[in-house]
């Protein structure tokens, strides 16, 4: 019990609660059902990507190509949707095609990282640039709206259960699935193990390459799902809509307590990290603070959170290093 109270997740949750209290004083709108679901819906794409990024970061890697991969899937979906019939089959097809393309692109990252052993940041910077270039070539940077999409797509995008958007439900299902994967499957434990100690994991018979290809593939899969969510949310294909979005994704994961050096990170933490980012942005809007300041505030909070974390880590290390001095 004590360890739960002292955990990182708890401190993030506490910050969220305090922030919410302040915000509900600033604006009566904040604590309404509509506003809360708006926050969740608006950050579903961020959340889905952050869940995938959590696994990558736990292994000590990073994927800066997520936004590019997501956009690529969106563009391809846009091209295909135009030809699809107005029937539920189209939605099913969309849910097959998008994750599939995502997995292929993600696994490509994973292959390069594990087999050729190029550092993840270099690999994903490279693939990001290539994908972005190809997207611009194909779309000419042009915005495409959903008027020519089958009607069933718009119905799907607006679908709600008890007033909760399908996007929130997608995010929730993925969070639960990823949590289960990390806690209860062999591959999930292996993800944590290789992040904790690479050398030891090889000694313990863990297939290092397989785990890496898996995490980047999984990241790609979720980028495919995030593409569906983004397309549903904006109801348009915007080749530039997610430019630079990878930074927010990484920020949410780090805010959620994952260690960028690997070994540490939880789904609950990331979920809270996403929520915190979302509430902050929402709060700044409600408080009529210029949107440009949002980035400054987000950056400052990340630095604060990481500093706090590092100080705590140092303290606990000092504690272990103590020598019993004779009185």
């Amino acid at each position: 019990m004590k360890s739960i109270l002292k955990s990182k997740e708890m401190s993030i949750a506490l910050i969220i609660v305090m922030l919410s209290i302040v915000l509900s004083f600033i604006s009566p709108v904040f604590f309404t059902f509509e506003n809360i679901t708006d926050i969740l819906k608006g950050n579903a794409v961020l959340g889905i990507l952050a869940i995938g990024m959590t696994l990558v970061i736990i292994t000590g890697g990073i994927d800066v190509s997520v936004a590019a991969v997501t956009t690529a899937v969106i563009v391809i979906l846009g091209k295909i949707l135009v030809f699809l019939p107005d029937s539920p089959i189209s939605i099913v097809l969309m849910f097959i095609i998008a994750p599939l393309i995502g997995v292929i692109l993600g696994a490509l990252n994973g292959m390069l990282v594990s087999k050729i052993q190029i550092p993840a940041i270099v690999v994903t910077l490279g693939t990001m640039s290539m994908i972005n270039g190809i997207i611009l070539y194909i779309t000419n940077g042009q915005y495409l709206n959903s008027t020519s999409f089958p009607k069933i797509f718009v119905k799907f995008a607006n679908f709600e259960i008890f007033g909760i958007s399908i996007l929130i439900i997608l995010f929730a299902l993925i969070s639960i699935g990823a949590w289960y994967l990390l806690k209860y499957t062999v591959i999930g434990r292996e993800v944590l193990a290789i992040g904790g100690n690479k050398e030891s994991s090889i000694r313990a018979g863990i297939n290092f390459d397989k785990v890496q290809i898996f995490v980047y593939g999984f990241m790609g899969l979720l980028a495919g799902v995030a593409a569906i969510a983004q397309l549903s949310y904006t109801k348009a294909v915007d080749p530039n809509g997610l430019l630079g979005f990878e930074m927010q994704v990484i920020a949410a994961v780090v805010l959620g307590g994952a260690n960028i050096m690997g070994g540490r990170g939880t789904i609950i933490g990331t979920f809270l990290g996403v929520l915190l980012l979302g509430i902050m942005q929402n709060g700044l809007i409600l408080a009529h603070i210029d949107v440009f300041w949002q980035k400054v505030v987000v950056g400052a909070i990340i630095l604060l959170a990481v500093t706090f974390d590092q100080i705590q880590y140092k303290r606990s290390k000092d504690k272990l290093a103590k020598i019993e001095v004779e009185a």
Partner: protein
Amino acid sequence: MSKYILQMNHISKTFPGVKALDNVKLEIEPGEVHALIGENGAGKSTLIKILAGIYDADPGAEFYFEGREADIKKPIDATLKGISIIYQDLSLFPNLSVAENIFIGRDSNSNSLKKVNWKHIEEIAESALKELDVQIDLNLPVEKLSIAQQQLIEIARALAFEAKLIVMDEPTSSLSAGEVEKLYKVINNLKQKGISIIFVSHKLKELFTVSDRFTVLRDGKYVGTYESKELNEDKLINLMVGRQVLYEKNKGGIQIGQTVFEVKCLSKEGNFKDISFELKQGEVIGITGLMGSGRTELAQAIFGINTPVTGEIKINGESVTIKSSEDAVKKGIAYIPESRKTQGLILEQSIINNISLPVLKTLRNAFGLISRKKEVDLANHYIKTLDVRPALPNLKTGKMSGGNQQKVVIGKWLSTKPKLLIIDEPTNGIDIGAKTEIHKLLRKLASEGMGVIVISSELPEVLAVSDRIIVMRHGRIAGELAIEEATQENIMNYALLGSKVSKENKNQGKGKVIVESGVSM
């Protein structure tokens, strides 16, 4: 069926340019503790790595485990067959729980999406810990445990895999004396269960305490296998090096001058307390003590990287405050840390760039740019005076032997013209010939007027290099000995018991752990 559980014959291993092992043999009986011994570079770790499945032996090797040809291709194959290796740096996952660390590896061949059975994991971990008779919270992440506890987790892990042979590589190197005793108990307990143990260590006394038989390697070759009874330390050392080695004790009686360095009542909460000593011109002070006695912490405090401290530090009679390593360097203090490769050198860079690093500012030319010529001259000067080999200023330091790397580190700090040189474990991981050279060098620096403090856990080294020896225990000075009266025995007594004469010493039988003659603490 042979009487051996493990038989390795005609084991050779060639790396590009080096024959690391040449026709080596190792035979282990069930339920014995077998010491594998040899100098650094004798081939012990290569042999262990072949046993572990990390390296393949050259063709022609015979490798049988439990009477059958051992088909070990990957580390996990060895583990699953019942060979567990406990490496010196341990193979644990700091972020995972105790239970999971004990269990890990069993699922590595199963379906990736298989559900993890946490109850089963905890049961296995619990029974393994019970077998060892230790109690550790199963849910604690391993990073919260002490090194001794972590080692027990590794042993528990071996038991959970039903190991029949456990290899322990330098298992006592980071343990306190009390913890070592406990480890011996555990080893005895494993022996009773019929488990064989290969024990790799440099501490001779320790090996005689635990081992039944010895296999000695020298320069990658097999020297022989001996019963513990037929050997003593001198014989063993002879076998290891092929010659009598222990370096000579320093004679003392040097001319000493004024006090150059002095600390008075130096204390740091949780590190050390009331440390006072003086260093006179021309003499070398040796500071020794067990792991965790506060010796390194003291050195780092003097150098300003372990602050704040209370008390007084005087250089040439003048009181100084040192708040950072920058202060220390300005005041003429140089500190050479224990881990040469991570803290002392930039391995990817040349001798020149390493030596010039602390004094780059003084090597500028008229335009304020660094003069390559001055850099090269400086490096050449120290290569010559310290006899660095090979004498190639452009060589990457990562490619040099340990002894020569250490000389480069010393050169690097000499370039700052320090008044006081503190050197921590100066010959760690260096072969014996080079050790003597480093000792001579340190004595020479002192005779030329530099204050030298040597921190070492290797008693023969402390005796070979110091004029005065300070023994620390639990963060305090337990005793100070002039070289004339110092022996390994009385140093050890101060370090372990805090007094000169131990109660046990008088009627101590052979095989006790108290006095570690020959090698390190």
